[in-house]
């Protein structure tokens, strides 16, 4: 028997769940296929949940979603080998409900989200890998799975299959991902008593802290490190562009080990029990790397569509929003009795263009090029800034004017005045 659904959603991560939930809620028949043992068992994220994106899908998610800590403080550190220069932003505004951001543990959160999807009426089948798309000419008409007789059909197939985007690559909707468009991140989760976390990070109750880091921890590679507080655990990780990883000899786990040894980081994670090590690619190619995300009978959502804002470390909200918007486009077209073809699905891309998802990516579209072409940003400048700070703070009988001169000389020795000005200009243009 040929089974046919209104929609098939491939993947039960943030974007797939958002799409499946929205579709099912509107009364469409939805089949969701997940290759993991349960939703979340294949998914890796930092992880920070941005309330706004989820609120627009499940307004009362706070009632029962498994949330770790709401974030009241953001620290940004620029690291040298032994030091860091940083800014901390902490506000009691963030300590008042409804909270804006939370840390989450994806395996638990995804199970919860998936429960909501199923309650909305979608059929979820786990332990099923989609191996290819079924085509009728140019049109996607269903999927083939690795189950026996596992061919299923639908009016629309929504690809929420994650950063590797194998299905769209195989179907030649886009090319294989280039190393310069993805970052590899590795992370560990360390468990420790709640009180230890609260005293180390100066928080109480369910409040939490985020530390984002850049500088010498990535050994000159374009990348960042992070440390997030969960209820009874810390997540620590580091990620760099694959194109940079490709040109050096440090393994990702050595990089993480070295970062954990940094004198400013080590005391924060001391005594924790490491319970999982994970790796994941992040689609950081930005606006210019976003592939075609719709066609006859298919749409791409989430990481698979490169919807990730690397500057602001946002991904799950772009994933959820793109999933929701894809679903809304389908609902609208179905309601109007229009075909789900390339011409009509174009409004999905238009809606993304008009939303923060692509507006934000567009804003930073030149940033990857600026950073890729410039090794100074992740090594030399962090070093110089830290040295300048050190010079100004250390009291050693040298007058401040001389100290200023030393700092200036240090800068121009490492990078010509024109180089410095050029970099500042490029950076300003890229962030403008």
């Amino acid at each position, binding site marked *: 028997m040929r089974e046919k659904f209104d929609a098939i959603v491939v993947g039960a991560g943030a974007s797939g769940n958002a799409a499946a939930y929205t579709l099912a809620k509107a009364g469409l028949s939805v089949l969701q296929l997940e290759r993991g043992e349960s939703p979340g*068992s294949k998914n890796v994220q930092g992880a920070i949940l941005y309330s706004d994106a989820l609120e627009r899908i499940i307004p009362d998610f706070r009632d029962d979603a498994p949330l770790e800590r709401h974030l009241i403080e953001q620290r940004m550190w620029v690291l040298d080998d032994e030091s860091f220069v940083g800014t901390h932003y902490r506000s009691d505004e963030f300590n008042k409900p409804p909270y804006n951001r939370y840390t989450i543990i*994806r395996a638990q959160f995804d199970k919860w989200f998936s429960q909501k999807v199923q309650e909305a009426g979608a059929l979820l089948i786990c332990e099923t890998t989609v191996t290819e798309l079924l085509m009728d000419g140019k049109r996607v008409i269903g999927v083939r799975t*690795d*189950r026996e007789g596992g061919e299923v059909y639908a009016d629309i197939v929504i690809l929420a299959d994650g950063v590797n985007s194998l299905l769209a690559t195989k179907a030649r909707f886009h090319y294989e991902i280039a190393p310069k468009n*993805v970052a590899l991140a590795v992370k560990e989760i360390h468990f420790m008593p709640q009180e230890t976390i609260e005293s180390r990070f100066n928080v109480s109750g369910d409040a939490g802290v985020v530390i984002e880091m850049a500088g010498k921890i990535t050994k000159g590679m374009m990348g960042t490190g992070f440390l997030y507080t969960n209820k009874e655990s810390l997540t620590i990780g580091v990620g760099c562009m694959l194109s940079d990883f*490709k040109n050096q000899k440090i393994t990702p786990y050595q990089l993480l*080990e070295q970062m954990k040894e940094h004198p400013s980081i080590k005391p924060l994670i001391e005594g924790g029990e490491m319970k999982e090590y*994970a790796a994941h*690619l992040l689609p950081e190619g930005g606006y210019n790397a976003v592939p075609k995300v719709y066609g006859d009978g298919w749409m791409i959502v989430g990481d698979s569509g490169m919807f990730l804002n690397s500057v602001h470390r946002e991904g799950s909200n772009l994933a959820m929003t793109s999933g929701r918007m894809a679903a809304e486009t389908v609902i609208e077209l179905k309601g109007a009795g229009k075909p789900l073809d390339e011409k009509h699905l174009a409004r999905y891309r238009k809606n993304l263009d008009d939303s923060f998802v692509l507006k934000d990516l567009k804003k930073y579209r030149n940033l990857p090029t600026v950073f890729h072409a410039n090794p100074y940003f992740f090594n030399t400048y962090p070093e110089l800034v830290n040295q300048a700070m050190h010079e100004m703070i250390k009291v050693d009988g040298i007058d401040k004017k001389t100290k200023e001169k030393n700092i200036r000389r240090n800068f121009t020795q490492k990078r010509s005045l024109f180089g410095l000005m050029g970099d500042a200009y490029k950076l300003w243009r890229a962030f403008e």
Partner: protein
Amino acid sequence: MSTAKVEEKLFQNRYRVDTGRPHITIRNAEICTNECADQQCTVCCPAGCYTLEGNGRVVLISDGCMECGTCRIICDEHRNVAWEYPRGGYGILFKFG
């Protein structure tokens, strides 16, 4: 040294290995040995699945694979990595993710 360390890390992870059916294979071992200058898969794989043997051969054991996709994407000059997801239910099973 570094290999021992990654094994300790992977020991914390949960896997259901599809014995005898690796989801990643090297298409042509000769290319790795003779044509690939850097063999960066042996550096970049976060699970240390690729090791370089004395005779210049690259050996892949994918049991500890975290299914990130790094090896496939960095092999952009030779496209010598055949990469599929494991069968449904197999492979890494993240406890926390």
